[in-house]
């Protein structure tokens, strides 16, 4: 098992004809992800190395039955593409696009919430995220899959490269991952830590969860409360941005300490208060994870 993406994933990509979009789509296909189609308005009828391109999400869905959408279109078109994919009935939408206006994200989030109340199931991961990788099964996004292998550690993170850093150290200790989920660094993410923790808690393969957060907002504090109440599996956390000055945006649109709220110290404290171990460096996080997992699977074989 794994969460969100696996061998049953049927992926279609908005922005497949762009430079970045085609590069990463083909990368995902090479990894073994079943890529069934693409969407670029005005380029319907073309193909990208055999992947058929459609003018709209409705057409792509009618012709190729994708269950997962990846959004690679420029920021000003991204919100509409996400909503169009949801309207067409796609259940999982992974938005890689960086730089979407916050108000567009509010519109998307609240529209999808309304859809849910009406019984639709569309789930958005991202935007401004590296995507989702279930090693050995499917890769949807831009995570460099070669560093990861199958295993029992679930990872959920607001940052891409930091995930690779922590994941790689865990991999070097002999452990693999069930799924790695990048929820993105924007102020209004489609999925929160809590949403993904819930999935990992239910996933048979996942035995330990690594949560990698950063300054800004209160998603880590909300995760801490959720973990205390609902998560039985061990969780190891990391928070980036202890040295970030207030009022300065640190790369990600959502990574900003506002006054005294959203600090790394407050987040680490909130997690520790609920019994979550917090590593002070990526290396320490990996070390704690390895310690909690016990003997590495490789050593067990030996």
């Amino acid at each position: 098992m794994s969460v969100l993406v696996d061998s049953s994933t049927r992926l279609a990509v908005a922005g497949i004809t762009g430079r970045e979009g085609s590069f990463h789509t083909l990368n995902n296909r090479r990894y073994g992800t079943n890529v069934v189609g693409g969407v670029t308005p005005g380029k319907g009828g073309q193909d990208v190395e055999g992947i058929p391109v459609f003018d709209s999400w409705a057409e792509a869905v009618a012709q190729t039955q994708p269950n997962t959408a990846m959004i690679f279109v420029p920021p000003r078109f991204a919100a509409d593409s996400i909503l169009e994919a949801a309207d067409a009935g796609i259940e999982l939408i992974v938005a890689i696009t960086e730089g979407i206006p916050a108000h567009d994200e509010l519109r998307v989030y609240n529209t999808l919430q309304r859809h849910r109340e009406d019984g639709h199931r569309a789930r958005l991961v991202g935007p401004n995220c590296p995507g989702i990788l279930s090693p050995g099964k499917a890769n949807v996004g831009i995570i460099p899959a070669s560093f990861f292998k199958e295993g029992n550690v679930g990872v959920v993170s607001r940052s891409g490269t930091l995930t690779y850093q922590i994941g790689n150290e865990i991999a070097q200790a002999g452990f693999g991952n069930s799924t790695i989920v990048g929820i993105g660094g924007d102020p209004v993410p489609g999925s929160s830590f809590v949403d993904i923790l819930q999935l990992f808690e239910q996933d048979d393969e996942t035995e330990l969860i690594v949560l990698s957060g950063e300054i800004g907002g209160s998603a880590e504090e909300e995760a801490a409360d959720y973990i205390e109440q609902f998560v039985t599996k061990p969780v190891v956390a990391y928070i980036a941005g202890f040295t970030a000055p207030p009022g300065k945006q640190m790369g990600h649109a959502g990574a900003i300490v506002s006054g005294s709220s959203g600090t790394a110290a407050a987040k680490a404290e909130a997690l520790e208060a609920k019994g979550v171990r917090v590593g002070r460096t990526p290396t320490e996080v990996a070390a704690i994870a390895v310690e909690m997992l016990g003997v590495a699977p490789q050593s067990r074989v030996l």
Partner: protein
Amino acid sequence: MDLLEYQGKQLFRAHGLAVSEGRAADTVEDAVAAADAIGYPVVVKAQVLIGGRGKAGGVKLASSAEEARQHASKILGMDIRGHTVHTLWIEHASEIASEYYAAVLLDRSAKQPLVMFSTEGGVEIEQIAKQTPERLIRHHVDYLEGLSRAESLQIATEGGAEEDVREGVADALLALYEVWRQEDATLAEINPLIVTPDRQVKALDAKVSLDGNALYRHPDHASLSDSRNEDPIERKAKEQGVQYVKLDGDIGILGNGAGLVMSTLDVVAQAGGKPANFLDAGGGSDAEKIKQAVEIILANDAVKAVLFNIFGGITRCDEVARGLIGAFEEMGPAISVPFVVRLDGTNDEDGRRLIEQAALPNVHPAKTMNEAAEKVVALAAAQSGRQV
């Protein structure tokens, strides 16, 4: 993007919120001319992106041209908690019967707009929230529906706005919401929102933050960014599309990915060093971009050593190495500080080999992030020792 008071007030006025008549001035002469045109008494207000202007002496009442001149010459150029005053806002002085507080902001937790209102204005919102939380109304708006007049009136009433100005306060809240929504703001705050003795409701201050990602919808917002209040190196970095934040230490940092760079700053601080900057070279950086980034880091004279911390995903370590080598070729002797370089991930072996072959002076490889941090802290300390 944070706006100065007078820029925020321009947006307020455009959306029908009452503000006092005023003019911006960059020189003492302009300030006096503005005051003369507006008519005395006027308030001379320092325009800086930081609170506590009044306490710092940056807000003064002037009843004559002579007083306006005195205040303007004293406030222009003044340093207010690290912010230099380049611009003044001269506005007609208001008589105040009551001071309220109003704000609309993006509540990241609820993922909805949040309207806040209190009759205890004039002090900082943190103080209102702490001292009289029962008098601070917090009302979430459904983003898809917008703020209705009925809701707005309810907020004014529940918040305890005096009965004869409830309609006026409701109008002000509606206008403030429109500023927030139509201008793609993340924050629109009025503190204080005043009631005058003749029962007008007016914005006496303005704090507005606009979403930089929405600039394409608002070409007019570009002119609101006041580059004189920006750090010159940050400005240059922004022009080149590099994510750079200047900090007050002496160790230059370059990494790829915002999270990894933030983490690098933390690890350097834990090793006893002080980072001089945040710089995210971004995903898929090529050699040219890395070279520009090195120039930006070294433009800060305080930098005594530089740390490259790369975990290559889309970014290829060989491209980073080529960029660093290119920077040394171009800047050569101008680079007088040591570099510590840690390359891991995509094409890391190629990258390390390229750097080794280039035999760059004073460039030290490191295997792990922690080792790199310790090395660069030691090198920066040694460098400081040499200069002392």
